[in-house]
C-alpha cells in the first residue's frame, strides 16, 4: 500500500500518443511541417506571409494563382494554426493511409485546394461582391469531414434524436455552424465551400481528378519511393484501408519492411545517441546554451533601435497638457533680465566676463549670494540659505545654497515645484545667464495668480553637491555637516534645472535626465519638455550629446549606448540627479550651439513647463520609469529591453545548474571508483548483507545500476567557504577605494592590478597544497560562483539594467573558463592556462578602468575621486557591484585557471 502504484492511471497514455505521432505518414508530416514553418515565418515583421499567400478575391490574377495553393498552410497566429493542426492531423493521416502518399500529394496540391478556393472566389467576388481574404487549413478539415460524413452516411444513414431521424451527412454542417458561432473571424462561406467539395469528392464525382493508379504505381516502382522515403505509404496498400482496417494499425502491421523506417531511424538514433551521451549533455550542451544566451542577449540589444521594437513617445498623463497655454514671458521682462545681469556683472571680479577659460573660475562669492538674496527678497519671495560641507577622498566641498519660495496663491503649500540654477553647470562652466534667468522668472512668476503649487527657486554654488545637500535637508536626511533648512514647502512634484553657460544666443536644448544609480525620471517629464520646446517654442532638442541625430539606426544605437553607459556608471549627470533617489522627477535643460534662440525663449520654455507641472493632480506616475531613449521621440520600455540583460544573467545560471548536475551525475568520461562515496558503498554493503542469496553477478549488476541512477555525494564545505570568502574579500578594496585620499588613487589602481595577477595564483597554490580539492570541488566552486553572479546580475537588472548588462558582458568569459583537466599534456595545459590568465587579466576591473580612462582621456584619479564622492555624497553603489559582485566572480575564474597550473 505504500507503493505509489495504487494511483489511477492517466486518462490517456502518453506512450500511445508518442507512437501515434512517430507513425504519422510522410505527406501528413510535410503538411504539419509546412504549417509550422509558415507560422514561424509570420513571427517576423518584415515580410507579411499572410498578405503574400492569403486567398484574397481581389488579389487573384494570373500571376497570383499560387494563392489557390498556399492559403491552406498559412495561418493567422498561433491558436489558429494550433487548432487547425489538431483537427487536421488525424483526418489527413487517415486519408493518406487510405489512398497512399502519392495520391494525397496529387489531390491536396491540386483539386482539393483549388476547387474550394475557386468556389469561394466565385461566390465571394461575383455573387456577394465582397473581398474577404481567407487563410487556414480549416478548408481541408471541413473538406475531409465532408468526405467522411458521406462515407458514414453510406453505412449509417441516420442517427435518431428522439423521434427525429437526422441524416448523418449533415454533421459537418452542424460543425461548421458551431465553429462559426463559437470562434470569431471564421469564414462560414469558406467552410461551406469546402464541405460542398468534400461531399462531391465523397460521392465520387471528383474521381476524374484522381490520377490513374497504374501511372502512380509505375512512378512508385521506377523511383523506388517505398525504399527511399521514410514513412511513405504505397498506393498499393490503400486496398487494406478500404476494407475498414484501422489505418494506423494497418500501416504498422503491413508495412513492416525495415526499409521504410530506414531514414527516420537513422536520424532518431543520432538524437538518441546525443541524449544518452553524458559528455555531450553535461559538458557541451551547457556551453552551447550559455553561448546562445549571451549571443541572443547582445543581438536583442542591437535589435532595439529598429522601428518594430521601439515605440513613439506619447504623453501619458493627461493633466500635463504640454504647450496648451500661452507663455507670456517676453518683451519687458527682457529689460528686467538685462538689469539683473548688469547687477550681477558688477559684482564679478572684472565686470562682465568674457568667453575665455578664466570665466569658469569665478566662484559664487558671499557678495553675489547676498545680491541674489536681496533680489529675490525684493521680488516678494521668502528667502533662506543653507550652508553645507562634504569631505570625500580628502577633498572638502563646501558652499551656501540660496533658495526662495513663491507660495502658491491657489494652493495649500502641500506641493511644490523646484527650479534649480547652479552657479557652475555640471561641466563646471559659469552659469551666469541661467542664474539671471532664474531671478527674472522668480519676479515674473510671483505676479501670476494661477500657481497651485509652490515654486522653489534654488541657486546652488555647484551642480555636484549643492542640490544634494539641499534635497537631503529638505527630507531631513542630511548628514551632520549639512545645515537643516529653515524654510520648507510641500512635497516636491518635479524639478527643473536650467543651464545657460554662455552669453551668445543658443540653437537647441540638450535634455539631461540620468539620475544617480541609473534611476530615471518619469518619461512624461521628458516628453513634456520635448513637446514644449519643439512644438510650442520651435527649439530643437537633443539627448545624450547627439548633436546631429539623423534618426538612422546607427544614431539611435549610439544614443541608446550612451544612455546605457551613463546609467550603468550610475553617477550624477547634473544637478537634477540628486532629486531622483527621493522619487522626484527632474531634468536638466542645457542650452547648446549658436543659433537665434535667446534667453527669453528659454524662459518661455521653463514657464510653459512649470505651467504643465502646475497642472498635475498627482505625482507623475502614468508613464514609464524604465526606458531607453534613442531619439527625443522614440524609446523602448523595460518589457522589451529587459530580456537582453536577463539572458546574459541567465547564461551564468544555466552554467551553474549544469555544473551542479554534472557534479552529481557525471564526472569525467570514465567514472573512477573513488568518485563513489561512502553512501553508495555502504548502500551496496547493506544490499549485499540483506540479500545474501543473490548471486554475485546480480550484485554487481545492481552496483552498476546504482552508479547510473544514484547521485554522487557532493562535498560542499570547501567550495562554499571559498566562494563566500571571495565575496567577503571584495569588501576590502571597496573600503580602501572609498576612504583613500585622492592622491593615492593612481597608485592603488596599479597595486590592485598587480594583486589581481598574483592573488589568484596564490590562492590556487594555497588551496591545492592545503586542501587538495577533488575535481568535483573545482566544478562546484565554479557552479556556486556563477550561481551567485547570475543571481546578483538578474536582481541588478531590475534596478539598473545597464550596469547589469555591462558587468554581465564583461563576465561572460567566466562561464567558459574552468580548471583544465590534469590529464591534458603538461606543456599544452600550462600554455593554455597562461593564455587564459592573460586574457582574463585584460578583463579585470582595474584594467577595464584604466582602459576606459585611456579611451576617454580622463585621468584615473579624477574618475576614482568622482566615484568616492558618489559613494560619500550621492549614495552611489556602482562600486559595491564592481567589488562585491564582479571582482569576486572574476577572481574565482582566474583561480580556477590557476589551479590547472599546480
Amino acid at each position: 500500500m505504500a507503493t505509489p502504484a495504487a494511483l489511477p492511471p492517466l486518462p490517456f497514455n502518453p506512450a500511445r500518443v508518442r507512437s501515434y505521432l512517430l507513425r504519422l505518414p510522410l505527406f501528413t508530416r510535410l503538411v504539419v511541417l509546412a504549417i509550422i514553418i509558415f507560422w514561424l515565418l509570420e513571427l517576423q515583421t518584415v515580410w507579411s506571409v499572410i498578405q503574400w499567400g492569403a486567398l484574397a478575391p481581389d488579389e487573384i490574377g494570373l500571376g497570383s494563382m499560387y494563392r489557390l495553393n498556399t492559403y491552406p498552410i498559412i495561418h493567422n497566429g498561433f491558436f489558429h494554426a494550433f487548432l487547425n493542426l489538431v483537427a487536421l492531423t488525424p483526418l489527413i493521416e487517415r486519408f493518406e493511409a487510405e489512398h497512399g502518399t502519392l495520391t494525397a500529394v496529387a489531390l491536396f496540391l491540386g483539386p482539393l485546394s483549388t476547387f474550394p478556393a475557386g468556389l469561394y472566389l466565385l461566390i465571394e467576388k461575383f455573387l456577394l461582391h465582397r473581398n474577404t481574404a481567407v487563410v487556414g487549413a480549416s478548408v481541408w478539415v471541413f473538406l475531409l469531414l465532408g468526405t467522411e460524413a458521406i462515407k458514414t452516411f453510406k453505412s449509417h444513414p441516420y442517427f435518431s434524436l428522439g423521434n427525429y431521424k437526422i441524416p448523418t451527412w449533415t454533421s459537418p454542417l452542424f460543425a461548421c455552424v458551431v465553429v462559426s458561432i463559437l470562434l470569431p473571424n471564421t469564414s462560414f462561406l469558406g467552410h461551406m465551400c469546402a464541405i460542398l467539395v468534400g461531399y462531391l469528392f465523397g460521392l465520387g464525382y471528383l474521381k476524374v481528378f484522381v490520377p490513374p493508379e497504374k501511372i502512380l504505381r509505375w512512378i512508385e516502382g521506377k523511383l523506388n519511393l517505398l525504399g527511399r522515403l521514410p514513412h511513405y505509404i504505397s498506393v498499393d496498400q490503400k486496398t487494406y484501408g478500404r476494407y475498414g482496417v484501422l489505418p494506423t494499425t494497418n500501416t504498422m502491421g503491413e508495412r513492416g519492411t525495415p526499409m521504410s523506417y530506414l531514414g527516420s531511424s537513422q536520424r532518431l538514433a543520432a538524437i538518441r545517441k546525443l541524449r544518452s551521451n553524458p559528455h555531450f549533455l553535461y559538458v557541451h550542451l551547457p556551453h552551447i546554451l550559455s553561448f546562445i544566451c549571451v549571443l541572443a542577449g547582445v543581438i536583442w540589444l542591437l535589435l532595439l533601435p529598429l522601428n518594430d521594437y521601439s515605440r513613439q513617445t506619447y504623453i501619458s498623463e493627461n493633466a500635463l497638457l504640454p504647450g496648451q497655454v500661452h507663455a507670456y514671458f517676453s518683451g519687458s521682462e527682457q529689460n528686467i533680465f538685462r538689469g539683473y545681469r548688469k547687477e550681477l556683472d558688477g559684482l564679478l571680479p572684472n565686470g562682465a566676463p568674457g568667453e575665455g577659460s578664466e570665466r569658469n573660475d569665478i566662484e559664487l562669492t558671499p557678495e553675489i549670494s547676498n545680491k541674489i538674496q536681496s533680489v529675490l527678497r525684493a521680488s516678494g519671495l521668502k528667502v533662506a540659505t543653507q550652508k553645507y560641507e562634504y569631505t570625500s577622498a580628502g577633498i572638502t566641498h563646501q558652499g551656501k545654497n540660496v533658495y526662495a519660495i513663491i507660495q502658491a496663491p491657489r494652493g495649500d503649500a502641500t506641493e511644490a515645484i523646484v527650479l534649480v540654477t547652479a552657479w557652475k553647470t555640471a561641466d563646471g562652466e559659469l552659469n551666469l545667464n541661467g542664474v539671471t534667468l532664474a531671478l527674472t522668472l522668480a519676479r515674473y512668476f510671483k505676479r501670476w495668480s494661477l500657481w497651485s503649487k509652490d515654486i522653489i527657486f534654488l541657486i546652488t554654488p555647484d551642480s555636484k553637491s549643492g542640490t544634494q545637500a539641499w534635497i537631503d535637508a529638505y527630507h531631513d536626511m542630511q548628514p551632520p555637516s549639512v545645515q537643516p533648512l529653515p524654510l520648507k514647502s510641500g512635497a516636491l512634484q518635479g524639478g527643473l534645472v536650467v543651464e545657460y553657460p554662455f552669453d551668445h544666443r543658443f540653437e537647441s536644448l540638450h535634455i539631461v535626465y540620468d539620475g544617480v544609480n541609473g534611476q530615471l525620471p518619469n518619461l512624461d517629464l521628458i516628453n513634456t519638455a520635448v513637446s514644449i520646446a519643439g512644438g510650442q517654442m520651435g527649439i530643437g532638442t537633443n539627448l545624450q550629446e547627439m548633436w546631429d541625430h539623423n534618426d538612422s539606426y546607427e544614431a539611435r544605437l549610439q544614443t541608446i549606448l550612451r544612455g546605457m553607459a551613463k546609467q550603468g556608471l550610475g553617477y550624477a549627470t547634473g544637478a537634477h540627479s540628486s532629486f531622483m533617489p527621493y522619487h522626484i522627477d527632474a531634468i536638466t535643460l542645457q542650452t547648446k550651439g549658436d543659433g537665434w534662440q535667446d534667453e527669453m525663449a528659454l524662459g518661455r520654455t521653463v514657464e510653459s513647463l512649470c505651467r504643465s507641472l502646475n497642472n498635475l493632480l498627482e505625482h507623475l506616475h502614468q508613464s514609464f520609469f524604465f526606458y531607453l531613449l534613442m531619439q527625443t521621440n522614440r524609446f523602448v520600455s523595460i518589457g522589451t529591453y529587459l530580456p537582453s540583460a536577463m539572458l546574459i544573467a541567465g547564461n551564468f545560471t544555466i552554467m551553474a545548474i549544469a555544473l551542479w548536475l554534472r557534479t552529481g551525475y557525471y564526472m569525467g568520461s570514465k567514472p573512477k571508483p573513488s568518485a563513489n562515496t561512502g553512501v553508495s558503498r555502504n548502500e551496496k554493503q547493506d544490499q549485499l548483507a540483506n540479500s545474501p542469496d543473490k548471486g554475485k553477478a546480480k550484485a554487481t549488476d545492481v552496483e552498476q545500476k546504482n552508479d547510473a541512477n544514484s547521485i554522487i555525494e557532493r562535498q560542499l564545505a570547501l567550495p562554499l567557504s571559498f566562494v563566500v570568502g571571495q565575496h567577503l574579500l571584495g569588501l576590502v578594496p571597496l573600503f580602501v577605494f572609498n576612504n583613500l585620499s585622492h592622491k593615492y588613487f593612481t597608485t592603488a589602481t596599479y597595486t590592485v592590478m598587480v594583486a589581481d595577477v598574483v592573488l589568484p595564483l596564490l590562492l590556487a597554490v594555497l588551496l591545492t597544497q592545503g586542501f587538495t580539492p577533488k575535481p568535483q570541488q573545482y566544478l562546484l566552486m565554479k557552479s556556486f560562483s556563477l550561481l551567485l553572479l547570475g543571481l546578483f546580475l538578474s536582481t541588478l537588472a531590475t534596478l539598473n539594467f545597464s550596469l547589469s548588462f555591462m558587468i554581465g558582458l564583461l563576465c561572460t568569459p567566466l562561464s567558459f573558463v574552468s580548471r583544465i583537466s590534469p590529464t591534458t599534456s603538461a606543456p599544452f595545459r600550462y600554455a593554455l592556462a597562461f593564455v587564459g590568465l592573460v586574457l582574463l587579466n585584460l578583463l579585470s576591473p582595474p584594467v577595464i578602468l584604466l582602459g576606459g580612462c585611456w579611451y576617454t582621456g580622463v585621468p584615473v584619479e579624477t574618475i576614482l575621486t568622482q566615484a568616492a564622492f558618489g559613494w560619500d555624497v550621492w549614495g552611489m553603489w556602482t562600486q559595491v557591484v564592481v567589488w562585491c559582485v564582479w571582482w569576486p566572480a572574476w577572481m574565482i575564474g582566474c583561480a580556477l585557471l590557476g589551479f590547472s597550473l599546480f
Partner: protein
Amino acid sequence: MLVVDRRQAAVFAGALALRLLLLVLFPSLPDLLTGRVEVSTPISSFKRLQEGLFLYTRNVSPYDGGVFHQAPLLLPVFALLPNAREFPLPTALFYSLIDLINANALITISDSGQAGSGRLFSALRKHIRWDGVSIAAWFLFNPFTIATCLGRSTSVFTTTGILYALSNAVSGNSLNAMLSLGFASYLSIYPALLFIPLMLLCYDRRAQGSRLPAGVAIFAVQHLAIFLLSIAGLLGISCFIVGDFSQFISATYGFQLLVPDLTPNVGLWWYFFIEMFDSFREFFLGVFWLHLAAYVGGLTVRLRGQPLFVITSLLGIFAVFKPYPSISDASLYFALLPLYRHLFPLMRYTFFAVSALLYATLLGPAFYHLWIYAGSGNANFFYAITLVWSLGLSILLADTIFAALRDEWEQENPEMRGKEARQI
C-alpha cells in the same frame, strides 16, 4: 550539556563574536533590519515592543494605541534591559545569548539521534549525519538567523520554546516539553498545533525506556492537561501584569487569529486579504486557518513512525502558510532540516529550491525598494517574489517529505533500494 567541548565553545564564541562585530561595524544595521518587513512582522516587531514597553513603564496598558500585539510577559523582561536606543549592546547581547541557547537545544536534539532512529522507525542511512555542533553552526551562521537576531524580532522566543520542547521531548522529559510548548504557544498561538506530534514523540521516547507507559489515550490526556495548565498559568501571570484580560486577549490572540494588519510580509495572507471583499473575509479566514491546521493530522498519521520529522515539516509548513511569517520561521525550519542529513541523498530538487530561495532573498528587497522607495514598481512586484519564496520553501518541504517516504518505502521493499521507481 555540562561538558562543553572545544568545538562547541569555538562555534558559540564565533557566533557571538560575529553578531557583536556586525553590530559594532555597522551600528545602523539593527535598526535597518528592525524596519524590514521580511524580519519584523506586526506580531514580532521590536519597534512595536518598544512602544508597548514605553506604555508599560509609564503604567499605561501596553495595548492602548493598538500598536503592540505581543505577549505581555515579554514586557517585564525587556523592562530590565536598558533602553535599546541609547545602549544597543545589552539588547544585542541578550538576543545573541538567546540564539546560543537555541543552538544548545539543537545540539541536544541532534545528539539524541532521534532524527535517524526512533521507537517505530529507523532510517536506512542513519549513519550519514552531522554531529550536533555542525548543526548548531549551521543554525548560528545562517544569515536568516543572524538577521533575525540583529533585527531583534521577538519570534526568537517562540523558537526557543519550540526547540526546548523538542530537546526535552527527545531526552525523555515530557513534562518539561509540554511546559516549553505551552510557553511557545502562549507567545504565538501556532505552536499549539505541534501538540499532537510532540505528545507522540514524548510517548515514543517514554516507551523506549524501561517501563511501558499506560495507553496512548491516557498519556495524551495527561499531557494535554499539563499543556493547558501551563498556558493557563502563563495567562494568569499575564493577567496579573496587564490587568484588563479581555483587552489583552483581543490585542494579542485576537490579532493573530483575525489578521487585521495587512502590512506586507513574506507570507501569502496579506495580499490575499487586501484583495478580498469584506463579506468573504471571515469565510476565508476560516479556510486559511483550517488549511494550516489540516496538515497536522495528515502528516502525523502518515509518518507516525517519525514524529520529530512531522514536527520539522510542520514548522516548514508554518513558515509558508502562517498569517505573519518572517524569515525567522524559515530559519527555524532550516535549523531542524540538517538533522535529516540522511535524507539528503534521496532529495531531488535541492539545488532548484535553494536557488529559488536565494533569488527570492535578493529580489525581495530589490522589488520592495522599487515599490516603496523608488516608486517605479508596485505591490505586485513584491508579492510575486513572496510567491517565489513560498514556492522555494514548498519545494524543499515536498522534497524532504518525498525523501522520508522513499526512505520508509525502501525499508519495506529492500529489493528496490537505490533503484529508480516511478509513480504511476
